[in-house]
Every structure is written in structure tokens, then in C-alpha cells.
């Protein structure tokens, strides 16, 4: 059987200290990745991944994004994400946290990454562990959204 195989990239966009972070969404990220592929890899690069690339999920709180690409040329997409310097004018550091072939692993990685980031926020805020903050609710809703993703 010749199955169509994908790669799921879990990307975190780390905002740099300069400039105000404008609100991103899935479409802006897709557009930025498209520009990056066209600039760095040309029409050939865009042609090999353009039909299959999809931004499946984006969370503004933790700046996490899930992108699905076809497996054959996923390295071009990965390289283009790395070579991205700015989205809509503000500079970011793209950090590909996890790459997998199934959506299940990506979901698990995304949920554990969210938990780490929230833990880091909480450690910086230095609140006591009994304090109920809005992060708890965010973790639940984001986990539900991530679990709801399908192929």
C-alpha cells in the first residue's frame, strides 16, 4: 500500500525581548512559512511541500503551533521554519520542540510542553502551590483542543 505519510512539527515561537508581540494566528504563521520557503528554497521548495503544509493548531498563551507536512520533504519545511526571522514584523526565535509521524505523539508532546511552560510561569510568579490561577483552566481547555485534532 502506498500510504500518504506525514510529519507533525511542534513549533514554539519564542518572542524576543525587543518589540511588542502582535497577536499571531494560524494563517499568519502559514503565510510567514510560505514566504520563508519561497525566499530560501524557491518555487521548487514551495512546490514540494506547498500542497501538504497545514497549520493545525496555534495557542497564543504559550506560543505553540502544530504544523503538518508531508514526510518526503518535511526537512525543507523544517529548514524554512528555522530560517524564519520575523512574522508580521516582530522577530521570533522558532524552536521546533518535537517532530513525529503520528498525531498521537504530537498531542502528548504538546500537552507536556504546555505543562512545562505553565510550570515555568508559575515558578516565576512565585505563588504558593495552593493558589488557583487561570492557568489551570487554560491547561484543561488547551488539552481538550489538542486532543480534538484529527488527521
Amino acid at each position, binding site marked *: 500500500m502506498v500510504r500518504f505519510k506525514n510529519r507533525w512539527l511542534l513549533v514554539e515561537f519564542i518572542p524576543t525581548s525587543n518589540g511588542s508581540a502582535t497577536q499571531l494566528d494560524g494563517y499568519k504563521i502559514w503565510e510567514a512559512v510560505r514566504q520563508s520557503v519561497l525566499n*530560501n528554497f524557491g518555487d521548487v521548495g514551495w512546490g514540494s511541500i506547498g500542497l501538504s503544509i497545514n497549520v493545525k493548531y496555534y495557542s497564543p498563551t504559550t506560543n505553540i503551533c502544530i504544523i503538518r507536512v508531508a514526510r518526503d520533504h518535511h526537512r525543507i519545511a523544517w529548514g524554512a521554519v528555522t530560517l524564519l526571522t520575523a512574522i508580521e514584523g516582530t522577530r521570533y526565535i*522558532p524552536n521546533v520542540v518535537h517532530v513525529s509521524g503520528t498525531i498521537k505523539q504530537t498531542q502528548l508532546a504538546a500537552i507536556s510542553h504546555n505543562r512545562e511552560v505553565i510550570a515555568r510561569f508559575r515558578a516565576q510568579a512565585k505563588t504558593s502551590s495552593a493558589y488557583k490561577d487561570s492557568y489551570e483552566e487554560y491547561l484543561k481547555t488547551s488539552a481538550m483542543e489538542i486532543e480534538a485534532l484529527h488527521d
Partner: protein
Amino acid sequence: MFFDLNVPVHHPQHSSAQISKKNKGKQAQQPAEVTYTPAQVAAVEARLDLLVHLGYTVVALNQTVQTAVVPKVHVNILENLIQQLKPRPGIVILKRLTIVLDQESEKGFGLTPANASIFKPYDLIALVPTTLSTLSLACLTHSQPSVLTAHIIALPLTLRLDFRMKHTLVRTALKNGTVFEINYVGALGGENDTVLVEAGAAESGASAKRNWWATTKEVTRLTKGKGLIVSGGVVAEADLRTPRDVSNLITLLGLAQDAAHSASTSAPKSLVLRAQTRQTYRTVFSDPVLVIPEGTMPTPSVTSTPTISSSDTRSDKKRSREGEEGEDEPPQKKGNANGPENSSRKKKRKKNAQEGR
């Protein structure tokens, strides 16, 4: 364990106002006093924090010098800085000196035994050759094992090299243990170290990116992926990338996945260990220790085996002048059949060793 062996650091008093077109090509006069303002130290701390956050554990702060190292003018800007940084457990910070070689350096650029004391505090020495003759100097003369070996050759990747790199030069350099460095900041078209830009060894912009891909592919082809390390050279914070992303970028050059991974992990690791040989006498890991073999000196015992404590055969780094301890081992291993005789043998051997020295 991920390495970033090129984190550029500038002289705190060196401002762009001092650079004039007249001074281009000459060594810029650096004030002898190296004092860092708290803001500058905080900036370096923030950069290190970000590097640690992205996953790098070993970082080398890089001081770049143009054309030649003049003993009277040279100041070590890193010593002062490192003392002021807060201690980070688990993170290693190294000191590196990079010398940009241009046509004027062909006659000599200060990497001589006379100036050895200047180079001793640096853990790594790197050269940036911009002409064919300086490349052959770097690959042949300065890759020879000595106290002054330049272990890293960082070609100016964003320049259009007007000379063809010869495979024989590269091969000799690799055999002697030097590595070729790839700075990923060129692929992003990012801002380069100002000293490099002044020296004409780096550019930024659209043509810089194209040159980067061309030159890096050439370097990868010549080295066949073996003596390569990848490092940052990043000045602007937003150009930093995680080690995995950088590995993937290197894969796009045509390098195999395992070679790309080793270029950011095992290759720099062995480089750093190899560079430690510069701190030893004649690049042998520790001073040779003279041991008199049993049979040559008149002793009552005949049956003991001579101990080999010449350091060349052992890769044990920490063995310094402790040859006596090595000699004590064989008598103990033989068992305690003859207690008092054993101890007398030990004493005699110690005495003999001391006499022989």
C-alpha cells in the same frame, strides 16, 4: 550535550565611533583598560541565559582580532568578564581567540612561541583565512601539534571566495586534528560580529545568504562531513536557534543525518578535549616520568615486572608527576605472600626511582 563555540564578545570600550576608513586594515587601537559596565555584563548574562534555555551546555566566548596579534596592544577582554559572570552549575564557559587573516598577515601574525604567554589563557584558537596563502598557512603550519595550534579554521562563509580551496590542504589539516567551522548566522542573513565586518570577512544581506550556501556546501564536500563543527557567531538575540534546528539546517547542505548530529555534539567535544593539549608540555598529555626498570639496578628481587609509566601510552589526563603511585601498584597486586619482603621491595624501588631521576 550541545556546543556553541562562537559567542562573540566585544571590547567594552570599543565603539563604532572609533572606526574610521583610515584605520581599515590596521589594528584598531584598543584601550588597555577593560572595564565592563553593569549593563554590558547583564547583556552577556541574558545571552547566556537564552543559550542555556535553548539547550546549549558548553559555550565559548569569542574575542576577534584583526590581521595580527600585536603583543604590546593586545588585551584579553574575556578574563575580566568571566570573573563577573554568575556561577552556572552544569554549564561550561570557554575562552576563544579568533584571528582574521588577510593579505597583510601573510608575513606573520603573532602566533609565535615568543608570544606564547598571550595565548595561554585562551582555551581555543581560531583562524579566519581570507586568501589562499593564509589558508595554506592555517592548514599546514598552524595545525601542527604545539602549544599554539589553531584548532579551528573558520572560513568566511558569507564572502564570495575568489580562490579554490585545495583538497590536499584540507586533508592535511583534518589529519592533524583541526576542524572547520560553520557559523549558522550566515544562513539567516543575520548580523555578524562587527570586527569581522570591519575586517571584510563577513557581510549580511541577500548576497551573503547565497554565498553562505555556496561556500558551506563546498566546505562540506571537501571535508566529507568529518572534521566539521557548527557554531553560532550570532550577535542579535533573535538569530539564535536550538541545536536540533541547526542540525536539520546542516542536513540540507547534503550532509548525512548522523554527520550533522555529530557536528554539533561529538566533533566539538573531541575538539575541546584536543585543545586542552595546548596546556601541556609539547602536547603530550602530561610530563613524561622516568622509571628505572627492575633489572638494571642492583636489587635483591628479580621477579617483578617493570612498570610502564610513560604517559604516551596512557590516556589518563590527570597523571602528573605521580609516577611513584604507579610503581606501588604491581607489588600490591602480587598478593601478600611475603609481607615484610614486599614492603622492603617497595622501599627499594622508591629509592631507586628517586636516585634515577
